[in-house]
């Protein structure tokens, strides 16, 4: 049964697509041309990768004149990030520091 996670993982499983996505995350919105200039593949290949990333909801495109601008959609990564364990880990480490402080307050 297809689901959103499958397309997300499939889209990110390819190193070239991952590199394109990471570049959009780091540098913000870009045209296919500027992405191609820094990729190791042809413009049609870049366009094909971007189409797959778009299908997975990882990027959005916007037309401006004859140019197509792509931007990363961080929200699409949300299913991959488990905030509850992240937040619980944060509080555990803060409580460790709290205990260190309480010991010091005795002195």
């Amino acid at each position: 049964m297809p689901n959103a996670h499958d397309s997300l993982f499939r889209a990110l499983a390819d190193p070239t697509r991952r590199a394109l996505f990471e570049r959009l995350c780091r540098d913000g919105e870009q045209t296919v041309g500027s992405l191609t200039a820094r990729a190791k593949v042809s413009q049609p290949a870049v366009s094909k990768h971007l189409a797959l990333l778009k299908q997975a909801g990882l990027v959005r495109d916007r037309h401006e004149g004859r140019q197509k601008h792509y931007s990363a959609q961080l929200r699409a990564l949300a299913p991959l990030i488990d905030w509850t364990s992240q937040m619980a880990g944060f509080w555990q480490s803060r409580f460790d520091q709290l205990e260190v402080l309480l010991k010091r307050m005795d002195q």
Partner: protein
Amino acid sequence: MTRPAPETRSVIVEREIPHPPEKIWRALTQPHLIAEWLMKNDFKPAVGHRFNLRGDWGGVLDCEVLAVEPNKSLSYTWNFAHDDAAFNLQSVVTFTLTPTSTGTHLRMEQSGFRPDQKQAYGGAKQGWQQFLAKLNQVLARVD
């Protein structure tokens, strides 16, 4: 205690601490002590007082004191504004102190996360690089 709306979730962290509630209360409510274990702040133990918690990563949390019951419980909002709704955070942190024979049972509940709220506070900055590093390992196993 307020019951979170059904569409939100909570994080609960509990710990037995070998110190009396009065002492832990000081660490929870005095700004210079809070700064030592949590974050820099301009906290005051007064209901309605608005303050900020400033993280090492540069993020600033908007907070408001909701309830103060000396040596027993403390509750404040823990909000992080972000342009992207997935990273926006509106939550409530409640500390509860219960005396035990050996010290205190300290309970922290952070409630109000939406189910689509996968990233925690300022995670856009802090968790991102770590996430990308892990992503490579995860994806290597997918094929």
